[in-house]
């Protein structure tokens, strides 16, 4: 359970990247993009982010359920916090 706040922060960090990139590209595309296409482009951005997050997120939530030790889960947490600068990260929601 110690890793729960890290999940939140990592989600937030990556969501901020996704939103910023999505917005940047939609502006570049201009107003002539049909709604259906916009939806698919958004789906693409979520699909990529979610599939990349799956591994790291799973590595933060494995206490007891499999052979992985609690120690390893904590090590994963520290590594992710270092990699994504999560300790210094504001825990704001969806803010950029």
């Amino acid at each position, binding site marked *: *359970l110690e890793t*729960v*706040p890290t*999940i*939140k922060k990592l*989600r*937030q960090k990556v969501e901020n990247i996704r939103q910023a990139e999505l917005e940047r590209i939609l502006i570049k595309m201009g107003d002539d993009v049909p*709604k259906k296409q916009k*939806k698919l482009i*958004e*789906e693409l951005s*979520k*699909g990529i982010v*979610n*599939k990349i*997050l*799956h591994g790291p*997120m*799973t590595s933060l*939530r494995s206490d007891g359920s499999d052979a992985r030790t609690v120690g390893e889960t904590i090590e994963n947490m520290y590594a992710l916090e270092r990699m994504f600068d999560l300790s210094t990260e504001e*825990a704001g*929601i*969806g*803010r*950029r």
Partner: protein
Amino acid sequence: RVRSDLIRILKEGKKHLRDGHPGAAFVEFHLALSTARQLGDSVEEKKATRGLGASCQRQRKFREAINYHQMVLDKSMETGEHSGDTEAYGAIADCYTELGDMEKAAFFYDRYISRLEQDSDTE
């Protein structure tokens, strides 16, 4: 009201959220919710509901936010159309984390994580 109004209102709401005005966003999403219900559009209804949840979260009204995000999940159960569920699970878990209830947060993150590899959670 027609569908194009609804889309416009949802857009307004999102803009307010982005600009850091969750109170104003809440008002728009509330209007969007009743509009979507009038139109019988359950996908847009979920977007409006999710917007209400996000607006509450930004105002640190986490209990209220959880209720709205839970409404998204309920709607999915009702319709069998599960767009937005991944995000709803994640957001509920975020709220419980803020409330310090790590057990419940972990429960909902596990659901969130189990959906990450699925193909579509379109907004």
